[in-house]
Structures are given as C-alpha cells and as structure tokens.
C-alpha cells in the first residue's frame, strides 16, 4: 500500500451508503442529503406470501454495504467496518490488497510444493492438503498499510472504513504448517522459508521457520466455504497476527533455507523508516489496536441519552486483555465490556454504554493486549517512528461529536 487512499467516487458512494445507514439507525433523514428511495415493501407483510426459496441468499434490499475499491489490479478495497456487527467479516466484504490482480486458478491443477532444506521435497494437490487433520481458527488479517492516510493526514470526513478498513476477520479451516513440515522432514538447519504465490507478480515473502512450528496454517476455507479468489483461492498461507502481506495468497511454493531472501516486499516495501536514520525490517506482529466503529463518521446522534459505543480491538501478539473508552478526549478512561470471547490474534467486539448530554465529546478507544502492550497515542507513535513511518499504524483514534450530534474523525491524540 503506497497510496494513501483518495476519496474516490466509489468511496463517496460507499460513504453515502453509510450515511443512509446512519440515518436509518437514528431514524432521521440527514440534512443536505436526499433520502434514497426506499425498497418497495407491502404495507403489511403478514397479509401476503413472501419470496420463495432461492439457490443463493441475498442481503435485504435495505442493506447495501460495499467495499471501497481503488479499481486497479495493484489496488485495494476496504471493509465497511461501520456497517458490520460482531467480529466476522462477511467474505464478500473482506478487504483486498493485490499486487497483480486476482489470478484465476483451477483447484484441480493448483499445487503446493515444499522443497529446499527438507528430506523429501513434496508436491501436494489441494485434495492432498484437505486430507490432513484440520484445524479451525478465527483470525484477523490486517494490511500493514492500514490507516496510513488517517495517520499521516487525518481529515474530519474520514470514515471507519477509510481509517481502519484494511482489517477483516474470518473463521479459517486449514492444516497446521507444522504438519506439512513434518511430512517433508524440514532439516534442523533450516531457519527461514520463502513463501511464493501463484499470481502475476509471483509474490514472495521470507518467513522464520519458528512461525511454522508455532501457529502458521495453510488454509482453504473461510467462513464455512472455500476461500474467496480475492483471499487466495484455493490455498493461502495464514500467519496469525502477522502483517497482511506475508499471508501469501494463492500459495504454490515453500522453499526452506537459511536466510531471508530480501524480496521486494520486505525491503522496498513493508519496512518502516525510523527517526535514527534506519529502517525496521521484518516487523511481523501487528501491535494492539482498536477502533470505534459506531458511532463513526458520517453518523449523526439524533438524540441525547444512552448510546452504545462499539468497536473492535485486536492484537497480533495474543488476546486483547482490556479495552478502555474515553468520551472526554482521554481525560478519563472507562473499561469497555467484551461482547465476544477474546481469542488469540482475533478481534474482540467491545461496547461502552454512554449517556450523551448534548455537549461536545471526543470518543476514543485504547486497547491493551495480554502481553501488556498499550495502544499508543498518535503523538507517541510519531515521536517513536516519525510521520514518515510507512506501515504498522496503531495510534489511538476516535470520533468528535458536535453539539449537533454530527460525528467526525478525530486523530489528534
């Protein structure tokens, strides 16, 4: 992700959809915004037969969440976090970031070959992979560039989608990479492996072998069905908690060796310049982070009284231990409650009930993970890494609520 997302026409449309959603939430049409024509429904649905069964389900015509695609084969599309509940991202709304488009792969022909410092170089068909004992795990994937524009050049009109939409969560089914590594007999001297995708840039990343013995997976299913093509169909390397790019999609080859390969995606890209004139490399684990998804821009709070402040918190190092919410720009903090069970390297949905008195407020959230890492302020992050840091943005961010109830993005923490 080198491109700070611009507000494209499509994103503006997505924003409009969010706006309508927000207006529906509060039950009020928003000022200056022509209400969209409502889908046709009968006056009383109990008085006539409904629609028949169908081969595929569809969303209610009242719901139209969309990603915000940049439209390029080297582009991205962002998950509409403001439209989602719970922790799972519907597969068709999972964010995308491709470097050479989405390859068309035939699962009957696609294979995964493991070679290099191994006793038995083996090639596995997709069917072979599915014969191994499986595991089911819920994990997030977050692009290392998630939130770059919000960090470098925050604007009040940014939405949750633009601020943090390169985060998506799925329930994955796959085989532990450790199982495959035992199958090929990885030699003790192997310390790194190269993972290669079968797309048009033949994406490559170097991975320490230790991750394979820990929790790495080769996955083939997402949310109960085969992976979506945009998420790596038919096979993806999943390295729980690690920056998105290294979770190589369409994975076709793993080569065991003794040093990193220094691929373009771990040198020219995905490295973080530091104020001391160095660049941090191999910044794999994503540090604890949180985002309030409701309320968020462009919502307007319609009335005073109780509002559930809700959002997501996650850490690439383990479970989220605590989420705090502030409604007064960080002067005081309150523990939020978890609406889902915290699992390792998997987002938790949090909620804090807040009574809005009609005064200006700044809503912030701050996550702490089980290792004790506390999500930093933007000021602290800039002091540590500089405004020119290129990836791995996890500052405390939030939303400004005006007296009018209008909600805008707030980043000055």
């Amino acid at each position, binding site marked *: 992700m080198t491109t700070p997302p611009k507000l494209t026409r499509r994103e503006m449309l997505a924003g409009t959809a969010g706006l309508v959603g927000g207006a529906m939430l509060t039950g009020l049409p928003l000022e200056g915004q022509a209400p969209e024509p409502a889908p046709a429904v009968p006056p009383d649905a109990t008085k006539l037969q409904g629609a028949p069964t169908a081969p595929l389900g569809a969303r209610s015509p009242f719901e139209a969440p969309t990603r915000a695609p940049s439209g390029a084969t080297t582009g991205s599309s962002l998950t509409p976090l403001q439209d989602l509940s719970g922790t799972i991202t519907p597969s068709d709304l999972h964010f995308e970031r491709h470097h050479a488009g989405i390859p068309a792969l035939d699962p009957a022909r696609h294979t995964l070959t493991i070679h290099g410092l191994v006793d038995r170089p083996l090639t596995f068909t997709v069917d*072979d992979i599915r014969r191994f004992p499986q595991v*089911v795990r819920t994990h997030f994937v977050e692009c290392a560039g998630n939130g770059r524009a919000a960090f470098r050049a925050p604007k009040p009109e940014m939405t949750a989608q633009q601020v943090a939409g390169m985060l998506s969560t799925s329930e994955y089914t796959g085989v*532990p990479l450790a199982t495959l*590594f035992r199958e090929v007999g990885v030699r003790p001297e192997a310390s790194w492996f190269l993972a290669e995708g079968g797309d048009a840039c033949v994406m490559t990343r170097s991975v320490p072998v*230790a991750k394979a013995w820990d929790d790495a997976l080769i996955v083939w299913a997402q949310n109960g069905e085969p992976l979506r093509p945009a998420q790596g169909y038919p096979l993806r390397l999943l390295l729980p908690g690690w920056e998105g790019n290294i979770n190589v999609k369409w994975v076709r080859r793993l080569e065991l060796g003794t040093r990193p390969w220094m691929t373009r995606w771990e*040198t*020219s890209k995905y490295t973080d310049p530091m104020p001391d004139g*160095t660049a941090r490399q191999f910044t794999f*684990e994503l540090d604890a982070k949180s985002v309030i998804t409701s309320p968020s821009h462009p919502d307007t709070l319609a009335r005073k009284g109780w509002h559930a402040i809700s959002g997501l918190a996650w850490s690439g190092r383990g479970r989220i231990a605590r989420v705090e919410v502030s409604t007064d720009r960080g002067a005081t903090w309150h523990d939020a409650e978890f609406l889902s069970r915290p699992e390792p390297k998997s987002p938790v949905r949090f909620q804090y009930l807040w009574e809005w008195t009609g005064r200006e407020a700044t809503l912030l959230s701050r996550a702490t993970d089980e290792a004790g890492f506390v999500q930093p302020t933007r000021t*602290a992050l800039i002091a540590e890494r500089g405004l020119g840091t290129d990836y791995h943005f996890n500052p405390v961010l939030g939303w400004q609520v005006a007296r009018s109830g209008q909600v805008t993005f707030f980043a000055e923490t």
Partner: protein
Amino acid sequence: MRARTNLNTRTTLACLALAGAAACGDAAANGPATSASTPAAAPAVGPAAFTDYDGAAVAGGPGAGKRFGIGSAAARTAIAAMDRDVGPDGAELPPGRGTVAEGRTLYTAQCAACHGLNGEGNEPTYPRLLGRVADAEGFKFASDPKLPHTIGNYWPHATTLFDYIRRAMPHPQPGSLSDDQVYALTAYLLAQDDVIADDATLDAAALRAVKMPYADRFRPDDRKPTAAPAAARP
C-alpha cells in the same frame, strides 16, 4: 467462539496425556485413513508447539509426531521451473549479462510508459523508481513522508531488483524478459540512480559485488512485545 476440537485433535490430546506424542505417532489407528505405504513416524524436527485456543499448547498440532504419507515426490523439473528466486548473496543468479546501454533501450520501450522516462513514476499507481534528490539523502524518510524513495536511496540489495523485475515486470507481461534483459535493466536502473558506473555491464559476479548505498540502514524488528512507546498513555 470456542475453536472446535475435531476428532483428531482430541485423539492427539488424549494420546499426549496418556502416553506422550511419540507413542501416539506410532499408533496408526489413531490417525485418519492411513495406507500401507504410510511411513513410520519421523522424529520431530523442531520446537513444535501449536497454540490451542484454550491456552494449552498442543505440541505440533493435531497429528503431531505422525507422517501421513500424503503428497507426491516433487519433480526436480517442476521445482526448477518455479525456483527462480535470488537471495541477497546472489547465489542463485543465472548465467547471462547485460549493459547499461542495452538496459536504456529496453527501459524506454517497455517500462517508461508507466514508470516515466526518467523513472519518476506516476504515483500513486505507478511507483517512482529513480530520481535521487539531495533532500532525501541520508535516509531521513521518517521525518517527512514526502521524501521520494528511489532504488538508489532506499533499496538495501541489488539482487532484489533483479529478482523482482524478472518475476513481476513489465507489469502487463510479467515473466517475459530474458535473463540478459533483466541484467541489462538492472544495470540501467542502478546506473541511473548513481549506484554503478554508466558504462557498467552486469553479470552474476558483478551484480553480487554491487553494494547499495544504504544497505547498512536496515535492521530487524526490535520492538518489545510488552511495552508501548514511551508516553503512550494519553
């Protein structure tokens, strides 16, 4: 949100508790369909500890200590067809050679349309490749996001350029360049960004010898998992 423990995991867990992983690995009946050709359990080759959702480490994950005999021997030719990566020591560099002058001609014909005649790019879609400016020397990128990254002022390894062009460029016809052409383009881009001489020729030995100006600026992640940056708390 609990992870579902499948039968194999449970079996493994039970085996671990009862008899240890090695004994379970030998007991073929505990695994999924095994055939006569199933090899004997291989010795564990690493500190396998598959993190279970419930916090208990299931050593090696389901089926630990087992080999299943699934998969087929990878053909040498099939591996060779894919195994085209070049690491930082250049050990895998192929035969071939190319000059800066040849690279200039190729660049103009096949690359300039997207990356610009002078490698200035057309951001955000088409990245800048060249154009070192005095302001951006000294690796001060953290201070100003606008400082232009180029090959010469940022990339730590020349081998990366060879590997990437060969695997992914030109964007509309990836993988279409001969090794000679890739050497030539690598030479041209390095010469244009003042890393090697304008009359240079690159082959495997010459490319291995190239030292990028800021190679020593890259260092592995040194974050502490437990502590946020100082003054983290708002």
